[in-house]
């Protein structure tokens, strides 16, 4: 496993290696970030707000005089964790429904497709606003909202892939052999959809990071004292005028995470990397 991972990394083009480095960096941070944090993320430790970097506060302080580095190390876990869970739920549900639609009877296909069209026509931010307003903000609800928002897009892509594959001769052969729908969907079709699906998952992960950050920015995401990268940007927005590190660093963090994921996915799905 370890060996094949190294081989995979070696075969990647330069852009892919940069992406892999960025992604690995953020994953490591998500796991051990809180252990590295020099201060408690909620503690008011600096006497100065929007301080520049110094020996005590490497990345300066925020609008309340909290340590930016500590808050970033803790906040990254929320952004990455929530996005990963949400993208997994969205993709598994979307692809599962798409395969059901592709091998199922026509009425089911039609029903699912129209239901997804309905879902896709609801603006995601408004949808989130309404649900948060109705049920109050919680981690579980946030994850669910974000997953549901992105199921429809994944469904459409996976369904068009599956419908294309369903016409191919090897699927016909399996059908003529008398294979069940389950086998056809999971063994004959799914392995041939993985590559484009991963490209889609990468994009969706980025959208989810941005949506979560956007929601946090609006104050609907994670509630204080917790903070993800998006809320870090929002709460320090008043420092924008003076170019405070407290706002630049979380913004750069979001950018590097999304760019890294995209670079990696692009490189991994383009060439013949196995």
């Amino acid at each position: 496993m370890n060996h094949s991972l190294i081989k995979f990394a070696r075969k990647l083009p330069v852009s892919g290696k940069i992406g892999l480095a960025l992604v690995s960096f953020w994953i490591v941070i998500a796991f051990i970030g809180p252990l590295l944090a020099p201060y408690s993320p909620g503690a008011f430790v600096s006497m100065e707000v929007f301080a520049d970097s110094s020996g005590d506060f490497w990345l300066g302080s925020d609008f309340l005089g909290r340590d930016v580095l500590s808050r970033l190390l803790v906040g990254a876990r929320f952004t990455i964790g929530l996005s990963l869970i949400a993208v997994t739920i969205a993709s598994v549900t979307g692809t599962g429904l798409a395969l059901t639609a592709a091998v199922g009877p026509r009425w089911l296909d039609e029903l699912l497709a129209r239901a997804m069209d309905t879902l896709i026509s609801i603006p995601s931010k408004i949808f989130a606003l309404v649900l948060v307003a109705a049920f109050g903000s919680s981690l579980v609800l946030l994850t669910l909202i974000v997953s549901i928002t992105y199921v429809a897009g994944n469904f459409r892509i996976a369904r068009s892939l599956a419908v294309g594959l369903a016409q191919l001769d090897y699927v016909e052969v399996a059908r003529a052999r008398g294979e069940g729908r389950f086998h056809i969907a999971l063994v004959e079709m799914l392995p041939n959809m993985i590559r484009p699906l991963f490209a889609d998952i990468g994009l969706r992960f980025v959208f989810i990071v941005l949506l979560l950050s956007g929601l946090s920015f609006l104050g609907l995401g994670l509630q204080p004292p917790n903070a993800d990268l998006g809320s870090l940007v929002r709460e320090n927005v008043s420092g924008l005028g003076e170019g405070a590190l407290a706002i630049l660093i979380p913004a750069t963090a979001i950018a590097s995470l999304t760019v890294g994921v995209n670079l990696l996915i692009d490189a991994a799905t383009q060439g013949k990397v196995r």
Partner: protein
Amino acid sequence: MNAAPAPHIEVRNLCVTVTGPDGAPLRIVDSVSFDVARGEVLALIGESGSGKTTIALALMGYCRSGATISGDIRVGDASFGNTSPTLAQQRGHRITYVAQSAAAAFNPSRRIMAQVIEPALIHRTGSPDEAKARAIELFRALALPSPETIGNRYPHEVSGGQLQRLMAAMALITKPDLVIFDEPTTALDVTTQVEVLQAFRRVFREQEATGIYVSHDLAVVAQMADQILVLNRGQVREQNSTAALLKAPADDYTRTLMDAAHPVVRAQEPVARREPLLDISNISASYGSVDSAGRPALPVLSGVNLTIGRGGAVGVIGESGSGKSTIARVVAGLLAPTAGNVLLDGEPLAPTVAGRTREQLRRVQIVFQNADVALNPAHSVGDILGRVLRFYHGAKGADAQRRVARLLDLIRLPASVVDRRCDELSGGQKQRVNFARALAADPDVILCDEVTSALDTVVRGAILDLLADLRRDLGVAYLFISHDIATVKALCDEIVVLYKGTRVETGLCETYAAPPFHPYTDLLISSVPELRQGWLADETAQVRAPFAHLSERPDLCRFLPRCPVAIANKCDMTPPPLRRLSGGNVVLCHRTEAELAG
């Protein structure tokens, strides 16, 4: 004028190099040199992978990405390299290209005329009106129907053979010096191929251009080329004038190619009367919707009968659109017939897969034409075969492995391919695996849908031999579907000729050796190119069809609009009777045996 003018094309030590799978440079064209005199046609012939298309593309100064060209190429005053004029500058103007698949080469969303005159406009060889006038002239020369208006259609509104000729018009519009034909008729039916070849040759003579004709079919090349260059694995095996090469091939490989052009399979011992295994009775089928009376809008098969004996081989031939693949799909249960039924050992089979027992499914296996899409690229050879063994025979673990090894042995592949994925195999190997998957079920009958059509002649011969051996050793029966009568004759005991979903002739293989035939069978047989020069006539019998103006009607003989021997007031009034001839074959025709023999 010099006594010996310089040749139009000079190629010296042409090498094309790519990076091989192991990272080392791999020469796909290796030190190839040849000359072509002005106005002559040189054929590049060889199997797939022989580098023939690569050489043809190199003559336009082009190679696929990742490949590099070295050596000297000179065409007229242009040469490969950086000194002007380069080959690349003349591409599309003085040097033009006709690709194999016209259907893929035309843009489906633009009218044909706009695309045909595009090279003339890009290279500014004339005003749009002049280009259009020349295009119409070319359409007429290429014997296209209604030359004035065909340009206003879209590519999907004309037939495959017409599209191929239209692409030739596109190549000739700039009055090129050199035209490269890359397998232009390979994707066409034999009957269409004859028309297209005739049109190409006629126009070519008028244009006085030099030609490069790339093909794997020696018989086609014999009609078109003055010189033949035989290639194998990127190297020249032999170059000679067509007449000399056909008469006395000097190289072993050339002889292999010539032998493969006429597949001969060791004869089966004649079986007096095979007990019927699969009985297809009165099958009708269609795609798309049916009207209120249950009649389909587009019948693909109407009332087809066919019986396959145990261990027998029945061939079905016809052009594309004759419904021959539909028969296989109906028998396999992939398409429900609108009428009629399929009997296996006297027991009726359910119309679709869902209603059949696993045992019934096991006994009837289908093999598709194109192994590239018939084998799942995500699975290894072992997975593919193992799945069938587990599904039908419950074989697992060591037992399954042993059976997979035995299957690979049967189809003569090394046991090491078990772990390979199908995209790592060659075309012939893939087709063997495709076939082994059907064999894994241990079936009684295998439906072979054009299994040899996508293969080179040499590989095709090997696959046919394999099929014949398996039939002898395992006693499996075949329903063998093909558009190529020579292939069918080599393998089958009985042949059914299908035209537009109706059976026009049925008979034992031997009855197809000499007339009398149904007029359509006659057309099919006479359309197969023969391996001699001068086989291709300048006109076809088609032109003489007396009812060419009539549109096809399902209640009359479907062949009527194309039939050269149709009888007025009979063929256009009443449906044809089934007639049993003295040779034992049954034909659907108004003409009597004596008339058909004449």
